[in-house]
């Protein structure tokens, strides 16, 4: 799922400057699960914003990365569109007054919503990464950068593109110490060296020969440009 972190209030106010009446819209997807952009966080943010401007409407939408088919919205104005995509909404009767929408969704959700509305849509969060909820320890961790050329089959199911600070392809660099990435010394965090983990995992699996093979440079031909995939017939 997608991990996000709230932007500082000052930055949000800066973006919204010029608008006096806003709607705040959380997302029912990943950010609701992680409690960074669900109903409670929308309310909290609306309260803080309320000291500076009018939050005339607030609520949570369906997943903002997939709200509905565009044809379902055709002919509707922004207020009706917001009513249609929201799951829970307060102040919907005043939606016509809204001058800007603040979204607590990830960057995908914000862009999708912005594409559906005439009103300006602003992000309340910084989108961080695709990862998983912590299994142990205090951190959720990034697991996939969506590089488009998955190597997990050769690396014992541990992604070096994501989890090695240098995205190396051929083993640990000389910076590894006590099983940690060299960057740990700069940040003070304990970041495990992905290649030490890969080495240990492959050794355990009896597949160290995977580590002995020189892996080709990654191709950036596909990921260095805005990517798209053709929608399959019959898909959502």
């Amino acid at each position, binding site marked *: 799922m997608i991990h996000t972190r709230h932007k500082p209030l000052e930055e949000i106010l800066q973006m919204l400057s010029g608008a006096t009446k806003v709607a705040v819209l959380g997302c029912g997807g990943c950010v609701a699960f992680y409690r960074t952009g669900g109903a409670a966080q929308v309310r909290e943010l609306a309260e803080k914003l309320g000291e500076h401007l009018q939050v005339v409407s607030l609520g949570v939408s369906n997943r903002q990365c997939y709200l509905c088919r565009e044809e379902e919205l055709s002919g509707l104005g922004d207020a009706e569109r917001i009513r249609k995509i929201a799951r829970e909404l307060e102040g919907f009767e005043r939606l016509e007054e809204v001058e800007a929408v603040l979204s607590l969704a990830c960057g995908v959700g914000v862009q999708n919503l912005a594409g559906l509305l005439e009103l300006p849509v602003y992000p309340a969060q910084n989108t961080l990464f695709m990862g998983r909820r912590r299994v142990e320890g205090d951190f959720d961790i990034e697991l996939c950068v969506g590089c488009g050329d998955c190597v997990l089959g050769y690396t014992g199911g541990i992604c070096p593109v994501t989890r090695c*600070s*240098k*995205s*190396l*392809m*051929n*083993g*640990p*660099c*000389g*910076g*590894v*110490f*006590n*099983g940690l*990435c*060299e*960057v740990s*010394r*700069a*940040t003070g965090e304990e970041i495990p060296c992905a*290649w*030490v983990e890969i*080495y*240990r995992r492959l*050794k355990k699996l009896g597949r*160290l020969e995977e*580590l*002995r093979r*020189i892996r*080709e*440079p*990654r191709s*950036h031909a596909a990921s260095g440009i805005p990517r798209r995939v053709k929608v399959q017939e019959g898909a959502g």
Partner: protein
Amino acid sequence: MKVYSRFMESLRSSRFTVSGEIDPPKDANPAEVVEQVEALREHVVAANVTDNPIGDVIMCTLATCVIMQQHGLEPIYQATCRDRNRIALQSDVIGAAALGIRNVLALTGDHPRMGKSRDAKPVFDLDSVLLTRTLSTLRSGRNLSGEELARAPEFHIGVGLSPGVEPIEAEIIKLEKKIEAGAEFVQTQCIYDEKVMERLREETSHLDVPILPGIAPLRSLGMAKFMLANVPGISIPDEVMRRLESTRDLKETAIDIAAELVSAAKDYGFPGVHIMPVGMHMHVGEIIERSGVR
């Protein structure tokens, strides 16, 4: 196999080969390079030029190498993957070869988060294994796009090794890949512990490539503590720490300790050493002399 450089010629001979290291200045003053060159010239066959260690901005490797050549010291051009993608790396080493640079050392490079340019974009388009292979490909007369080069660059390819890191097997596997990719010589991270040297000898006995243990004089107890805290895989024996603590003449002790390590490298059968003087360029001659390797 052709020999393009004095450094490689020395490694192929039975002579004990000593390489040094030049620290490029942060500013545009060539005199700072010249000063180090003059200190090293009579004592080392060639000297490495670092590529912006920990991402702190200093004079570029190429310019430093050229200044060295103008003053009669053969450069070993260190190329790292931190700041340059495969286009820039190929372009730079082709240019270096055109300027007569005959030794290139392929390194991964420190992460930019380690130094003062922490917000810089880390590139790492290639890694040290792939950079090594890229250098081999260029030398064989092709570039990575498959185009033929009428005149291929002529240089020898070196790689680094961190002999103290754990798990050592992963490090050795990576070294084997570098050799498969065309590495012709190895220079290691600094070693202060003869046990590490011994292990290095054992772990690499199956490899047919000259390995030069890295030796950096310990100028002070503070530096020793800094190295222990900041250089991965470093171990400094208690006895060495005690000598640094109790000495009345730090410089002399630093030279002695370094000389003993040079001598140990020879005893363990290494074909030479790589001395990183870290500011003690004026004393490299003394280190070698006291080691008795010549």
